């Protein structure tokens, strides 16, 4: 069972990612979703998902802080974090790297960007 968490305050983006992932044809994927940083933190600690799609602009605590918490405070280094942001600025890329994110996808992304990355992380058997 692969667990993937989608964190975005926009329900349509969550829906889009869920639909893309449902089309990946990977067996045994369980998708969790959260619309804010606090909920995301709770789910991460409870479920320990393999992949987290993490939006930067979140109500409450932002994506960088969530990422920082997972990697540096909780030391959950097995979690693969893909930051999602609308900003294509170098500063945000650097911030994502500093907070410990594994990958960075800028909006708008294509289906192929997402599928390729998920397959890469989950391994060839999926």
């Amino acid at each position, binding site marked *: 069972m692969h667990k993937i968490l989608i964190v975005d305050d926009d329900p349509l*983006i969550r829906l*889009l990612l869920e639909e893309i992932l449902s*089309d990946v044809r990977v067996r045994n994927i369980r998708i969790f979703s959260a619309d804010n940083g606090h909920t995301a933190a709770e789910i991460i600690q409870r479920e320990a998902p393999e992949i987290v799609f993490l939006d930067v602009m979140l109500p409450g605590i932002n994506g960088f802080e969530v990422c920082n918490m997972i990697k540096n405070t909780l030391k959950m280094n097995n979690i693969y974090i893909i930051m999602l942001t*609308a*900003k294509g*600025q170098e500063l945000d890329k650097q911030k994502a790297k500093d907070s410990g994110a594994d990958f960075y996808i*800028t*909006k708008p*992304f294509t*289906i192929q960007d997402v599928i390729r990355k998920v397959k890469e992380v989950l391994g060839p058997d999926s």
Partner: protein
Amino acid sequence: MSKLFKKTLLIIIILFAIIALTTAISTGWNLYRDLTEEYKSKGTAIAKSIASSSVETLLNREASTVQAMIDQFTEIMGVSYVFVVDVQGEIISHTFVPMIPEEIQVIKNDKTRTIKDIHIKGMGDFIDIASPIVEGTVGVVHVGMDKGTIFSQLRAGMIRQLSLLSVIFIISVAFAYIFVNKISQPLNTLTDYSKKLASHDFAATVDIQSQDEIGLLADTMKSMAMDLSEVFERYELAMKDAIVELQDTLSYITAVIDNMADGLLVTDIDGIINHVNPALSIMFNITEAEMIGKHCKDLFGNELAEIVEKSRRSPDEAFTTEIKLAEGKVGQAVATGIHKDSLETDDFHGKGIGSVILIRDITSEKEIGQMKTDFISTVSHELRTPLTSVLGFTEIIERRLEENIFPLIQQTGQIVDTTIERIRNNIKIILSEGERLTALINDVLDVSKLEAGKVEWKIENISIAELIEHARFATSALFEQKKLEFKKDVEPNLPVISGDRDRLIQVFINLLSNAVKFTEKGYVLCRVKRGDDEIVVSISDTGSGISESNKKTVFEKFIQAGDTLTDKPRGTGLGLSICKQIVEYHGGTIWVESQAGQGSTFSFTLPLISRDLSKPFDILSISHLEKN
């Protein structure tokens, strides 16, 4: 008593003293000699006459007769005594009263003719003249002439002469006084006159009518005074004009300075504030009186003191810094040195005498800049999120239609096939337009970052050939789509250049994709040559070309070749503007050569000796501020 007269008097006194002395000596001597001679001859004559007339008397020894004769001779002036000595040496008669002095006894025996000076005690000095009677056979007559008479006569003569000289002296002095006064009076008048002239009293007059040198001097001074008065009048007028002009200029300048919206601060060479304007007082909420005479460092901090110091050392440069103003506002200070061109110093740049610092309140500009940045990132975020959904779901729809729906449609026919084809086309349009919108958002972000100077440039050594390979790879899909040929003509052994790799690749991609976009058939040629101190890159196509009127504006924002009303827009209109900014940042230039219908060539240069790129943000932010 005038000095001139004093001097004259001194000269007269000395002159008279010399005259009096010499005349007194010479006349005294002459008089003495003459009188002595006269007395001698007189005495001799008397003695001879007594001798000759007394021979008989003596022979007869009639002493009383002789006595009577000699007595009358004593009446003659100068004759003091007479005595007769007989052959035995006895004084037989004499005129001595009451008795014969001893000195006479000594000389009575002289029987020869002699003249000698004798002194008789109690009676004085005498000239004794002895005259023998009949060769001394009878006796000798002695006549004594009184020398005292000679001296008294001499004294009287001298007194007369000196009195005369004194009178002449007094008269001379009187004359000298009058004469000297006559000279010194006009001289004094002239002195007073020249003193008045010296104190610029040109209305003063002088009344000297004499025809001599003094008159000439007076005339010269009068004409000089007139000339001076004229010159002074002219200068005074010129000066008044200059003062009025200066006052006007000063009023203008003061008005300009006082009404400037920017704060003005002037410091001397040591950084001491010596002038401020009201705007500055308001900016810092410090009164003018509190600022004058203080050091700028004490009032405005190290940053300002630093640029003041720099401006003093570099006359041709302006230095800027941000400075905190009162009420949490932010100002930008620009310091420029005040340099005086001086011949006295060898310094090529002249002598620094202080600095002028202009302070502008850039709070609102900064706020606007921040608002602009925030706005753009917000808008781009707000646009990208729905765009992500639109593109994502469209892709999902396309995929599901292709994979799940279209294969299931069993019914065949013209209408169904056409509909399916139209749906495919429609979805492609949605996707390509969505991508165009994404590109537009990216370009807008790029332009705003470039203009705000917020691009972080990563300057490194790069090879042009490698850049071309990257760009060629990125645009290969476009070339395949249009079936266009990519040709390149790159000079071998090109030197490396320093620049931002990603940004320069962006330029190549932009120019290559533009070339493809506007070319329907033929090829795109990328040529790289080495110039004198630069590398020249040109990208030519065989496309539609650009009309003369469009050539001027292609590098401007939101301008595209062709008419957007009739032609289908095929880009964002920002690409060339971005290219221009990137190339110019690297110190190069970009231009286009084209003729409508005959293709276009876009060229740009990259300098081999790159300019100092170490402080790009200052330059960009200043130019940005100047634009505003």
